[in-house]
């Protein structure tokens, strides 16, 4: 009996996979999900474990928001200053305001700022990663495991479109985070005002795609081009999560336009 039950469950799972509605046109993403007004409209391979690149920072800023105090300052550690990839060029010992590190992490996807926030929250990155994985378990992210705070490739650093959608929903409940993500540019500086940094949003949709109001982009060689995009246009809210794309912005613009157009046919 139990054996038959397992077979039936397996069949249902296979059928669900086979009949999940993909978009009616070709996109390059390995996995994606499109929600219109909080209702899933199209999806593809949403539980596949893939490298999430800088979308990891959604978890980082959500953990920060649990203890957020914009007045606090952080002294940049040597480990944070050594961060690679996208970075501000922070120096070890330099003092930054938490709110500026948050802005740099979200708008510029700066890994040194992100690392500094992890240090600030948990003392160092390894302890912060334990916290990230603890929250992932608590939030039911079954296909997510982190090995670093900012999204560097690692065999054990993975997530799924489904789990990223869960994180995106939690971010959507944080107006302060959304406000930062919607900024196309922003100037920040270190605490003593001796250096300034011009931030330009890495999310190319901001200011270019009608109604794009935020979320996060990411890229690593293993992850490909990743994106969580939030669009609010004429009362319609569209959330797009896509992992491992090669033609991200054009794909995203097409998907978002298509989703908006389709929302009027419902």
């Amino acid at each position, binding site marked *: 009996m139990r054996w038959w039950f397992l077979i039936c469950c397996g069949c249902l799972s296979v059928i669900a996979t086979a009949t999940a509605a993909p978009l009616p046109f070709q996109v390059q993403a390995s996995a994606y999900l499109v929600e219109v007004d909080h209702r899933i409209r199209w999806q593809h391979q949403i539980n596949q474990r893939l490298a999430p690149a800088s979308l990891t920072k959604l978890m980082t800023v959500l953990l920060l928001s649990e203890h957020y105090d914009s007045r606090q300052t952080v002294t940049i550690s040597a480990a944070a200053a050594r961060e690679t990839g996208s970075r501000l060029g922070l120096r070890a010992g330099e003092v930054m305001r938490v709110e500026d590190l948050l802005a740099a992490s979200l708008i510029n996807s700066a890994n040194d700022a992100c690392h500094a926030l992890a240090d600030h929250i948990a003392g160092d990155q390894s302890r912060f990663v334990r916290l990230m994985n603890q929250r992932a378990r608590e939030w039911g992210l079954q296909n997510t495991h982190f090995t670093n705070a900012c999204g560097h490739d690692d065999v054990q650093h993975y997530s799924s479109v489904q789990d990223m959608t869960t994180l995106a929903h939690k971010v959507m409940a944080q107006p302060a985070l959304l406000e930062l993500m919607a900024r196309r540019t922003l100037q920040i500086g270190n605490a003593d005002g001796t250096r300034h940094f011009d931030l330009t949003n890495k999310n190319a949709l901001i200011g270019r795609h009608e109604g794009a109001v935020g979320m996060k982009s990411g890229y690593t060689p293993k992850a490909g081009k990743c994106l969580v995009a939030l669009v609010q246009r004429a009362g319609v809210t569209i959330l797009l999560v896509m992992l491992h794309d090669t033609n991200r*912005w054009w794909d995203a613009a097409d998907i978002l336009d298509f989703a908006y157009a389709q929302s009027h046919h419902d």
Partner: protein
Amino acid sequence: MSKLLIGLMLVCISVSDSAWAAGSDELWEITNKMEMEGMPFAMPGQTSKVCMQKGKQNDPAQALPKDKEQNCKMSDVKMSGNKTSWKMSCSGKDPMTGEGEMISSSSSYSGKVKMHSADGDMNMRYEGKRIGSCDYAKDGPEAKFTAMKNDMDAKSEQERVKECKNAVDDDSYSHFFKPDCSWAKDASSKKVCANMACPDFRPQMCDRIAKKLSLGDDGYEEIANNKDAVKLAKECGPSYEKSTRAYCNRQLQAKNYGKLAAHCDKESKPLFDKNCAGRDYTAAMDSAYGPICRRYGKWKNAPADEGEQSDNGGSSAGSNPAKSILDGAKNLKGLFGF
């Protein structure tokens, strides 16, 4: 039921006391009273004048509704002395049955009719007295019914004409197409539906469209931004296509790429091919051709756009929606071990 009642009343009651033409037929004053079962009070009696063919006052067929849609028939007519009785049935839209009787003389009559319908039973009592002469062909109930119908049709047409004139003035373009009357099942609904359209006012609307198109960019855009207006403008003649070409040439000269993207496919496509296809998203969208670059949706083989990290480009993992079905099939195969 209500229509049937109106039909009966039209037979039994003259709707107006207009002048009666002199003739060889008989003018009667009729008083009737209706009672409906279940109603707490009786309806007041009504008196009116009816022109009847001479000697027909005791013909029960006079009591039948003349509305052909009701399809009423009389049966079992019995005459005994000055008393007549009959049965009637209507199989039209409001089916009913009934029976009646009357006692008549050459100068007066009285009687009653009982009707049974889905809405309940109804009793009608009536009496009449001859008061003069008239011309039945002109003043009889059928003639009056026809006149009233014609009057109603004329009023309805007047209303339609008024609506259509307003539709022209208000640029209600949808009024000028043949309406979809598939919902209308009977003749009166079809007529109501047909009256919702103004195809005969198309020339006026086409003139108005032509005037707008002659007003330059604003006038053209007012038409071009309305789907019904565009459809109608195209059906009005070649001026819309001419105006489109003129408008698009102006936008091309002025490099108004937003307007070109919105209305000028012929001019936009070459610009898209030259300035958008294959370009990086941010570069294309930040250029003057941005609106045109979005017009044609997706294309393949765009070069890599910028990433957050400075490493080499990622490997392609191009996916195919059909792949999930294949994956599903593979899973199924694995599950059953074949």
